[in-house]
């Protein structure tokens, strides 16, 4: 019964009695407690109404049970204006309180503080992309709810964050149960949501591994779910929000910021993972929704001809740089035999510059015939880059 104990752990979290956490999981954000307070008010009001109603049904049911066939009921009033008014007005007043209290708590969820740090969220089928204000992205991953590519979103503890969210394909919804927040994410539109975590630090930055690690493996951060049904792998669109101390957070930022020193092939793998490419593409030849990347580079792509956007230097019918770039930026221009158009959404404006090169190099390195060449070129690029940096310095 591991699940039972896990459940009880969740119920009894955060210095509160089990009863106070009976309904909700631990509160991870500053406005979780005000939400819970409204809920508890509604709960007790409901209980005060529910118990007499059920009690009356049971009590009358026993007391006025018909003992003999045909027996008629005693005479009682058929209406009572005072009674009827009182049970109309009382709930009305109680519900007015519910509305105003809930509205007040909602307002605090609505308007982000001015100093909130923006994180740009792009949701897609079926994953998340988190771009921090300085232009670099999270690329921490762990397996949650059957998805090995679930992202970890490191945030600084006790600092307000504003999520500016959009979607690449269908409607998704950003939902962190511990924060009591949720907002739908639409294609073609931005929606905004903000939160500030409580002072609990869940992760630390591991200097050696250059990654964030959970302090307590049993309670690693706060779940992020997609709450709006978005298709096949909806339930695998999970993630975790990890809170770090300011020092660790800055160290993590530093480590993430600098991709210039990374070999193109490694960077390509990072970019691919960050953008959720492995949801649909394998690198070991196995079949997924999209073509495998193993031995893709240099293979024949019957019927493909370069579109105007990538016409320069692209060879028709062979999966070289032009083909890969077009597939990333304009995926619906052409579909390989056996794969349907419309499965992939465009990464135009999402992957560009060195990152785009990096993905091409990474795919190239997965092809046996070209691997050595790719590694050679990537190493040369890195060397040149380093020498330029030294030259500047």
């Amino acid at each position, binding site marked *: 019964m591991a*699940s039972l104990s896990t459940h009880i752990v969740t119920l009894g979290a955060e210095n509160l009695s089990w009863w106070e956490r009976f*309904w*909700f999981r631990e509160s991870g954000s500053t406005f979780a407690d005000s*939400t819970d307070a409204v*809920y508890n008010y*509604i709960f007790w009001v*409901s209980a005060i*109404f529910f118990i007499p109603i*059920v009690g*009356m049904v049971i009590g*009358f*049911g026993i007391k*006025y*049970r018909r003992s003999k*066939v045909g027996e008629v*009921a*005693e*005479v*009682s*009033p*058929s*209406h009572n204006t005072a009674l009827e008014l009182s*049970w*109309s007005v009382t*709930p*009305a007043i109680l*519900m*007015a309180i*519910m509305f105003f209290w*809930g*509205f007040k708590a*909602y307002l605090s969820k*609505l308007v982000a503080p001015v100093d909130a740090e923006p994180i740009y969220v792009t949701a897609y089928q079926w994953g998340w992309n988190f771009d921090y204000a300085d232009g670099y992205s999270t690329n921490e991953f762990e397996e*949650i709810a*059957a998805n*090995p590519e679930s992202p970890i979103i490191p945030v600084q503890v006790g600092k307000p964050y504003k999520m500016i969210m959009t979607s690449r394909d*269908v*409607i998704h919804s950003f*939902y962190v*149960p511990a924060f*009591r*927040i*949720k907002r*739908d994410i*639409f294609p*073609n539109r931005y929606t905004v949501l903000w939160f500030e975590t409580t002072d609990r630090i869940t992760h630390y930055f591991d200097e050696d591994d250059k990654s964030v690690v959970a302090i307590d493996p049993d309670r690693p951060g706060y*779940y992020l*779910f997609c709450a709006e*049904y*978005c298709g*096949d792998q*909806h*339930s*695998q669109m999970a993630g975790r929000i990890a809170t770090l101390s300011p020092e660790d957070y800055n160290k993590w930022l530093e480590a993430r910021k600098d991709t210039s020193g990374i070999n193109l092939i490694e960077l390509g793998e990072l970019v691919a993972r960050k953008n959720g490419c492995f949801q649909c593409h394998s690198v070991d030849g196995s*079949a997924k929704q999209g073509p495998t990347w193993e031995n893709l580079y240099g293979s024949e792509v*019957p019927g493909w001809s370069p579109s105007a956007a990538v016409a320069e230097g692209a060879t028709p019918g062979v999966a070289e740089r032009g083909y890969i770039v077009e597939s990333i930026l304009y995926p619906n221009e052409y579909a390989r035999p*056996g794969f*349907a*158009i*419309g499965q992939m959404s465009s990464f135009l404006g999402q992957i560009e510059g060195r990152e785009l090169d990096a993905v091409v190099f990474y795919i190239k390195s997965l092809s046996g015939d070209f691997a050595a060449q790719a590694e050679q070129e990537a190493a040369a690029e890195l060397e040149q880059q380093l020498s330029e940096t030294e030259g500047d310095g």
Partner: protein
Amino acid sequence: MGHHDRPYYASKETLWKTIWSWIYTVDHKKIGVMYLCAVLLMFFLGGVFAMALRAELWEPITNVTKQVQAEVQATDDAGRLVYENGAEVLVPVLNDDETPVLDADGEPKVEPKKNDAGQKVNAEGEPLGDPVMTPEVDADGNPVYEEVIEREGELFKGWTSESGTVNSNNVYNRLFSLHGTIMVFLFIIPAIPAALGNIFLPIMLGAKDVAFPKLNLGSWYIYIIGGLFAVYSLIAGGVETGWTFYTPYSTSTNWGSVTSMVLAAFILGFSSIFTGMNFIVTVHKLRVPGMGWFDMPLFIWALYATSIIQVLATPVVGITLLMLVFERTLGIGIFDPALGGDPVLYQHFFWFYSHPAVYIMILPGFGIVSELIAVHSHKRLFGYRAIAFSSIGIAAVSFLIWGHHMFTSESPSANVVFSALTFLVGLPTAIKVFNWTSSLYKASISWTTPMLYAAFFIFCFTIGGLTGPPLATLATDIHLHDTYFVVAHFHYVMMGGTVLAFLGGLHHWWPKFTGKMYNENWARLASILVFIGFNITFFTQFFLGTQGMPRRYATYVPEFELLHKISTFGSWVLAIAFLMHAVVFAFSLAGGRRAPRNPWGGLTLEWYADSPPVEHNFSHEPLLTHGPYDYDLVVPPGWDPADYPLPDPEAVARAHGH
């Protein structure tokens, strides 16, 4: 004719003539019975899907991306495995010395057979995969875009993946979508009005038939056509959009048969509209002479309020679904952000109907419970007018509050308006519950199956109603929206409310329209099991929801496993209880005791008709001499006045303030 002495369903001289008499009937009772059969069939189908999806949720799938191989269908000549779709042939991997390579379990390792070019091939050596999809080009050689690639028409497409393997996500998504679509459009909306309402509304009004009998038959055929569309899309791959068909997912998904299912819902809407029109005109024009508005039974009031919603709200969902079909076939783009459209607009369109539709589902249930409590406790209902007006009030308010389904997607300003308005609907609902409860005071309660169901209804519906405020309150709904809390809430209302009321009403009127009694003890046992199973299944889901389990999830994080297991266990109890009900009814039909005219001692007009009624309901037009709930003034028809001592008339007059 013989319609003055023979039951309405009496068989004709030949079997063919009997069948013909049902196909061409304009008798509201026969149409109601045909509706009842169709609706119960759909309830069974939706229930099967519900059981399957609860079973899928028994435990989280640890790695759904690793797909499970489907069962082996056959082996080919050489003893090698061939899969169902004839697609893939597995050949043993051989060492250099031609011996099979063994895997970790000691079994020969196999791999797909490939041709020289490295493509996987089938048994005939032909390369695998779909036909090559060359993009269609126009005259200038530019690719032609198609918004939606329809893959309809292939049987059971999408339940398995391309390579013939079972995909848990796909299966689960189809299960919950089909469960929702069938239960909402094919079961719960027509269940009470079109089946029980059709049989009893004219009789309770003392009329010979509904206002437009041919339209009534037409609406049944429209229902059947819509049902056939739904069954077609079920066979042709099902839907995986949820019953709400939210865009842009529903416009972009190319699996399953979304278009035909949407058309099914569109067609079913007309059936609902015609029933509603018929009932409104019948109530206005065909009440027996002497029956004023406040002499109508409360079931009629509830059906009248329901019909208003059906007439005023259903056309909007009709046009919404039609536009969705256009969206998928023509790509009109109004709901599709890829073309500059607005998916939130779709949500407004959809919920403008679908929120009032919630009251189409529950209001008739209120009506039935009012009848059950009055008849089975031989008691004048407390606050008749309050109950009647609250039905109309709920119908009116239902048009103002659809936005609370969109608290996470619409604008915050609209949120505030809708949140405030949503609380309005709590008032008439609360008034009803208080009135029912007070009616039991000093009653003479007979704990028959219908009365048990009325009590269970009050219990479950009160829970369902009281979990409404957390969903109407902005701060809490932001957390609870689209979680299992919502699932539990609307099942407590829809199932704990409507379905329990429907079952109560079915038992209540079963002797009247079949002419047979059922076994009271077994039915009571089954109803208690329904109650227990229902609460086990759905009360756990409140906890799941507040803990943050989103709905429509094929798998989940391990913390939720225990609660899901309890919930699934409850669904088994529920299934057993429903089967028990079916058996009790079957035994009743086969060899039930002949029903008396008035087994419960009711005072409404249907208890003055024969059991079962004759073709035109009454041999002579009934004469209305008393109100529907005057149990303290009138001896119910067929009851011995010696066993039914009426109270002192002066006490009655005092109590009612005359």
